[in-house]
């Protein structure tokens, strides 16, 4: 995300949907060409190594410069089946752009924006970039149609598997479709990626929740392998009084509600309090601003130093006018006579010795209780796990983080592989879309090795 390229961010109160248009504009054809020509075309380029999916970045950029946009899009999508979404949501400063050698000489190449330019061409021109492989007679069930599931499905289809995705929601795409703020990632981009996968013959059974509509045992019996790509679930309860009040939201559901029109207008002019300071909390805060809230405060029991949101997300939230209240621990929610949020009772905190996460542990300051006025509260203190489903498969896990062999992504059940957020946590992996995409690919290759043979074939 490049702050200096953001469009005028004045908030419209008459048409909230305008506030959810992409804020960083597409590169113009000239900007893309200038930027592509600036790429040095490094040998053994560090940007490739920094990309979890190892996109051949110098190659796709050179293709933009040569006017071969189809070839460019194919290089991207080959390595990353959700490459159009990643162009918009990857923390590029931490990945490819952070590794660009030009950081040491001038300005890094806008790799994310160039990736967006090339994939925009593919979206606009409805390019069919890949085709399904010759059928190998084996079938795979994929649970969850998010980045990991789609990525796995795309590669499995290219390798000749019969693939079915079981998706609980009405649309596939997972986080990319439902969970990333629209002004960063419009839903149509994710839906194009879903269509790309479907066009390889992958069946996507939406509104189908495994464990409710179909049992794990049925899947294990009917398919030769299963990929568990179910991600994470809702935000856990705060465990404080009054959280059953009206106008208390789960951040994941809150963001999801802004992904499709019509926009909810009832927060216009209201005071919104966000509890938490991770990337989802920032999303909830900036969505609140864009829904017309008059004041948005983020409450976090630690400090700026310990917050887990990316630096650029924090910077963006500040520019959006979000206020931060550090060392502030919510201990109760006050309701009004109608049972809706009226305020959040908080305690001031101070930092003590480092805890097991290496961060200094916050402890309450005696007698420091105060109330923050609020008309709505959005909770973003992490995500729970789909424990019952994981247990229904009988998989080894720790607090819902499914254990896998990191080399193969095979779970404790040799027929079941896992990829994406379901294996994130407990020191295992990263919770990025791009990591999920890579794991999805790797799970597909492991299944191919297990079911078909040792060596990889050329995919088409």
């Amino acid at each position, binding site marked *: 995300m490049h702050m200096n390229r953001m469009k005028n961010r004045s908030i419209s109160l008459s048409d909230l949907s305008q506030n959810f248009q992409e804020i960083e504009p597409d590169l113009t054809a000239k900007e893309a*060409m*200038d930027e*592509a*020509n600036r790429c*040095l*075309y*490094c*040998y*053994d*380029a*560090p940007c490739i190594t920094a990309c979890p999916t190892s996109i051949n970045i110098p190659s796709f950029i050179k293709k933009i*410069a040569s006017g071969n946009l189809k070839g460019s899009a194919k290089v991207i999508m080959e390595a990353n089946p959700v490459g159009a979404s990643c162009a918009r949501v990857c923390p590029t400063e931490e990945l490819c752009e952070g590794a660009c*050698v*030009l950081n*040491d*000489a001038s300005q890094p190449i806008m790799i994310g924006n160039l990736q967006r330019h090339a994939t925009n061409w593919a979206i606009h021109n409805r390019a069919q970039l890949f085709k399904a492989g010759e059928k190998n007679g084996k079938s795979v069930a994929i649970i969850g149609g998010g980045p990991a599931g789609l990525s796995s499905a795309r590669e499995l289809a290219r390798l000749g598997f019969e693939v079915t995705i079981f998706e609980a929601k009405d649309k596939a795409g997972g986080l990319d479709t439902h969970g990333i703020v629209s002004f960063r990632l419009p839903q149509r981009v994710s839906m194009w990626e879903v269509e790309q996968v479907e066009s390889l013959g992958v069946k996507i059974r939406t509104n189908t929740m495994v464990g409710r509509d179909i049992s794990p045992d049925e899947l294990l019996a009917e398919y030769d392998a299963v990929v568990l790509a179910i991600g994470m679930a809702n935000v856990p309860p705060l465990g404080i009084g009054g959280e059953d009040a009206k106008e208390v939201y789960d951040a994941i559901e809150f963001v999801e509600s802004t992904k499709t029109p019509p926009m909810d207008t009832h927060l216009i002019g209201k005071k919104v309090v966000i509890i938490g300071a991770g990337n989802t909390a920032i999303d909830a805060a900036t969505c609140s601003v864009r829904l017309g809230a008059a004041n948005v405060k983020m409450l976090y029991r630690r400090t700026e130093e310990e917050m887990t949101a990316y630096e650029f997300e924090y910077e963006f939230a500040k520019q959006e006018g979000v206020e931060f209240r550090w060392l502030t621990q919510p201990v109760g929610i006050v309701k009004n006579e109608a049972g809706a949020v009226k305020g959040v009772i908080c305690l001031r905190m101070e930092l003590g010795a480092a805890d097991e996460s290496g961060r200094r542990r916050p402890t309450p300051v005696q007698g420091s209780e105060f109330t923050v006025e609020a008309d709505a509260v959005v909770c973003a203190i992490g995500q729970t796990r789909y424990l019952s489903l994981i247990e229904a498969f009988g998989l080894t896990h720790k607090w819902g983080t499914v254990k896998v062999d990191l080399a193969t992504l095979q779970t404790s059940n040799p027929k079941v592989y896992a990829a994406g957020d379901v294996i994130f946590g407990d020191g295992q992996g990263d919770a990025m879309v791009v990591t999920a995409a890579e794991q999805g690919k790797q799970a597909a290759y492991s299944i191919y090795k297990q079911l078909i043979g040792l060596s990889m074939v050329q995919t088409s």
Partner: protein
Amino acid sequence: MADLHVNFAGIKAPNPFWLASAPPTNSGYQVQRAFEAGWGGAVWKTLGDPIINTSSRFAAMHFNGQRVAGFNNIELITDRPLEVNLKEIYETKKRFPNHAVIASLMVEPKQEKWHEIVKKAEAAGVDGLELNFGCPHGMAERGMGAASGQVPDLVQKQTTWAKEAARTPVIVKLTPNITDITATAWAAVQGGADAISMINTINSLAGVDLDSWNTVPNVAGKGAHGGYCGPAVKPIALNMVAECARNPEINVPISGIGGIGTWKDAAEFLLMGAGSVQVCTAAMHHGFSIVEDMIDGLSNYLDSKGLASVEELIGRTVPRYSDWGNLDLNYKVVAHINRNTCINCNKCHIACEDTAHQCIDMLTSADGNKYLQVREEDCVGCNLCSIVCPVDGAIDMIEIPNGPPMTWNERQIAIKQPIV
């Protein structure tokens, strides 16, 4: 501030930056605007007939996002009547008496035609004449321009005819579309030329349109070769200037033309023996105002070198230009990579590995940092790595001692010596 005045074969100008005979000098309006902007002289777009307009006429070579690395035209000489040009030359000279106004001329290879045009141009008050023996297209097919400029006898004969009538200095403009430009330069000198100028444009086809499969440019679906100029031709022009400058039999001033766009380009031509420089493409790309930095930059450069005038710079590199046989075969440089400046793009490694001598290693230090290192014993000092390196100062070519000097010519002599 250094003195930029030049006296080129008797033609005086406030500075060595002249506009070449080309579209920028097509009219009095343009030449006067150029003088206002600071240009020291202008060679008026070639006078002659007939008047023909080709549409379209220009095209360019763009390179990696940079516009106009090279420029191609299929335009002909002036598109205005002789009388109009002469009147405007007179007016321009009247308004700018201290600036150099030179008429470029081209007529059929007949004595009386040359006499007639020379007299008319001089009557308008020009400071000098430039004979256009270089235009590679259109005129050449009718025996003029490059058609006569490629035949030394015709160059000599027509120069003689022009000189018979001329009272002002005669510059002969040479075509590069010839194997050895010193042959035609020598012919011009034999014909009595007071100076020579080079290069005119190089035969070229700018491109092919990949959608229509037409040539670029095209005239109603057909193309023909044009003349190439602009930044890409500079090394070709510089060599031709240098070859003439170091030839003792071509002892007349040279006006350098070809790819000059900045004071640095100009300074290189001056060092290589040019007594003035002529510019076209850069002005067509950016307008006349570019001359401001050409003047300012050259002046600052001369000051920094402790030179009081531009005349002191002219030809200083000529003695250093020679034949390959006089180069020291024992001279050795090797590449040295400065790790503090290197940004690890590895372009030097892959250039050397794939296309040179495989002597740049990609290594990892004990602390895990990647670095590049030259195996000096295998390095032949070709410069390729330092050329592809995107960061100034990251690769130096270091001189290393390697025995006493020995040129090829000296070696041939030594081999012929009887062994005592």
